[in-house]
């Protein structure tokens, strides 16, 4: 199984994403923002960071990178994509997911270990969890407050596309405590928390819950 990890200028968690993919037993394939080439990968991980310095808006410039010309249609055609943090912001800017991530309510960057409730265990990236399960993942962002128009929220809530919700306190003022969402097909998932920083005993958050994301996608790819 080959999972692509995209590096934009200013991407920071690409090495960590690749490590998490490898630890799950898959091959991590580096993808470069300036290439028009997905290298035949089976799924794509858009990692966190400050691509293009977060200038203009987080993800607003990356959305126009050459690699996105390939990724956007492929994702619409069903290629599984996971976007965390800046990757989530890019997915929203690319209109692969609805809504937007804005400045945290408290106006501060927040780095902490956050409890998150799994609301939908039916997506390509969450099948290893159970609905209602609480997991622990680190968050680390300044612009993670999820906002969307009322009709969008209504549609997300009504169709089970809210995949994760913050538990034990909302760290950034997100509407409906939303931490992550999916597209209608459940192949594209974006979330602010960082599963790639919860996969090892020695480092990251005191949790191995991030492994579930990679176990989920590998299971899906094997059966596909």
């Amino acid at each position, binding site marked *: 199984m080959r999972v692509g990890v995209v590096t934009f200028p200013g991407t920071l968690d690409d*090495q*960590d994403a690749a490590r998490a993919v490898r630890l799950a037993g898959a091959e991590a394939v580096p993808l470069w923002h300036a290439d028009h080439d997905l290298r035949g990968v089976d799924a794509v991980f858009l990692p966190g960071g400050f691509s293009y*310095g977060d200038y203009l808006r987080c993800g607003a410039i990356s959305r126009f990178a050459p690699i996105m010309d390939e990724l956007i249609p492929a994702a619409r055609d069903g290629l599984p994509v996971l976007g965390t943090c800046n990757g989530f912001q890019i997915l929203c800017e690319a209109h692969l997911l609805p809504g937007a991530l804005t400045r945290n309510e408290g106006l501060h*960057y927040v780095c902490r270990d956050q409890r998150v409730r799994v609301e939908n265990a039916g997506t390509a990236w969450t099948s290893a969890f159970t609905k209602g399960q609480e997991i622990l993942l680190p968050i680390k962002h300044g612009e993670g407050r999820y906002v969307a128009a009322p009709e969008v929220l209504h549609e997300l809530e009504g169709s089970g596309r809210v995949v994760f919700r913050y538990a034990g306190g909302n760290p950034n003022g997100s509407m409906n405590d939303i931490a992550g969402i999916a597209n209608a097909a459940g192949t594209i998932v974006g979330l602010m928390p960082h599963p790639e920083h919860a996969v090892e005993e020695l480092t990251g958050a005191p949790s191995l819950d991030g492994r579930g994301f990679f176990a989920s996608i590998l299971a899906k790819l094997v059966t596909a």
Partner: protein
Amino acid sequence: MSARHLDTVKRAHDTPDEALPYAELGMKPDEYERVRAILGRRPTSSELAIYSVMWSEHCSYKSSKVHLRQFAAKAPVSAALLVGMGENAGVVDIGDGWAATFKIESHNHPSYVEPHQGAATGVGGIVRDIMSMGARPIAVMDSLRFGGAAEPDTRRVLSGVVGGISHYGNCLGLPNIGGEVVFDPCYLGNPLVNALCVGLLRKDQIKLATAPGPGNRVVLFGARTGADGIGGASVLASATFEDESHTKRPAVQVGDPFMEKLLIECCLELFEKDLVVGIQDLGAAGVSCATTELAAKGTGGMAVDLDLVPLRDPTLRPEEILMSESQERMMAVVAPHDVPAFMDICARWDVPATVIGEVTDSGRLVMTWNGEVIVDIPPGTAADEGPVYERPYHEPAGQHALNVAVDLPRPDDLRATLLRLLGSPNLASKEWVTSQYDRYVRGNTVLAQPADAGMIRISEVMPGATPTRRGIALATDGNGRYAKLDPYAGAQLALSEAYRNVAATGARPLAVTNCLNFGSPEDPEVMWQFAEAVRGLADACRTLGVPVTGGNVSFYNQTGVNAINPTPVVGVLGVIDDVAKRIRPGFTAEGLRVVLLGDTAEEFGGSEYAHVVHQRLAGLPPRVDLVAERALASVLVSAAADGLLEGSHDLSDGGLAIALAEACLAQGVGCSVTLPGHDAFVDLFSESAARVLVAVRPEAFGALAELCARHEVPCYGLGTTGGSSLIVEEVMEIPLGELRLTHERTLPEIFG
């Protein structure tokens, strides 16, 4: 502006008596005369720009040099030291073919003027220092000091500083793994922002700031040059060119962390492909510093077309370009045949790069502007042969009176005293600050704040590297109150604590960096503090067997005649052979034995108890015992390697009481202990050095006791972990909920 106004070397010859505003650039008359003597004529305005910044206190260390020599003269023999003082940063052998480079540097004054950008560019500058050794930066730490926490201006400065570090450091993708936040009224007008960076490289990859090989090209790469931080140079521009638009230049630099991140990745690829002969970052004194230092350490000459420097502001004059402190710039020396490959890599990372000159064997640094020579100097005279002062110093008039011990009234209620200290700004949780820093990025952080030391796993830092189980640990410490009472001992106590903090994680302390923050060197009493602190630190480094690899001096931290407490901040780097065996912070499980290593005496001079409860600074600081520190570190390192310890926490500010509280809060595990001595107040709050609290499985206690006996380290079983309270038998019981609330609410209540 036309060329006829340009102050060329020819014009300097023709107008020997033209007055130049050297005094406004901070140069003394005798220093200016020395420049004239070196050149055999008056300097051009561009040459004056170079000499004035290179001979400034900041760049030349003219007041501190005679004292700092002790760090080399008294340095212990260390097989680990690969590059010592004098380069951008020291380099230490950490085994398995790996080397670590680290350094701490101040950005105090800019952080008071403009806290956000001042602190941000402080991080940027130290990161470039590390890059210029050929290393990948892998972590940062910050040692911060502010005025009283309740002061309105502290809110402005602290919020800005933390925001600046958060913004710049997070955007760079470097985990922030520790540091300090200290409040004291003496820092109100003079906050201290000391930024540390550590980098990793293969032993055979070390790069130096040198420009050898005539014909090699000089490449300026990174951000374009703007008017940042020019300050003084505008005097020259306006004086010589009568252009008022140049008289208002910003004195503080503005950082672009995105460019710095690109610069990091770009540099690493350049190093990997071996395309760099020599490299230097552009920090204080910008192009002046980089060209003179590279040339002085290389073949000796360099020819530069200054008008090729890419500008953000096309109206900049040569003097301003020379002094600009625009951030995110580097200068490399590249063999001619490697220039195309060099440029390709820069283009891949969208980093602008320009060949601005070449190395020569002329022994002169020659710069032209539109073809006319405006600088022609022997580069060593600016870089290395600046003035050296033996500033007079004497013990402060009030020092003896200050050292008279006072008998402070004892508290009636030890429980209330513990809570009062735990909630005081210096001892309260720093989560409000550290939660604004990314401690996880790059996925190699093994320990971070509030652990005694930060720790980074090195096996996965660079692809294709030799596999290793090793890790590095880092801690910074300083105590201005101790140093005020006795600067010699104060510096040694700062080193002792950082050394102990590193050992408390199971890592073996290897090397030292320092940031020496003091008032004005022109005040003999301040100079005495400085001389004593340096002497103390150098002596202690020798005894502990850890060499100083580099550092930084920050003088003039004073407002009027009121200097800050002398504040030597010491950083210690250690190595652990197997990161998986690190000792975790605090009490990590129930049913462990709580053991105190080290002896306690009645020592309250400069203590948190005296500070918080009595607002008194008098007497002498705790006794320094380097032999005991060394023995204690040996026990901790051995015990970690043998897997004997389940948790640890060093004893320092606030003594055993605070250490117990913090150890309980680390994982939410309570404890029940009996104090070892006869005097509960002394046992709980004295700040005697060379002590650590450890948690050990009951069956491992015998082995630990034996190890302690072998190293002659006192070892006291105090009790057991477990439950949901901190219980000191016959003295107090505090539920963890109450401890946590007290510890965590202080900073959010003050800073929002």
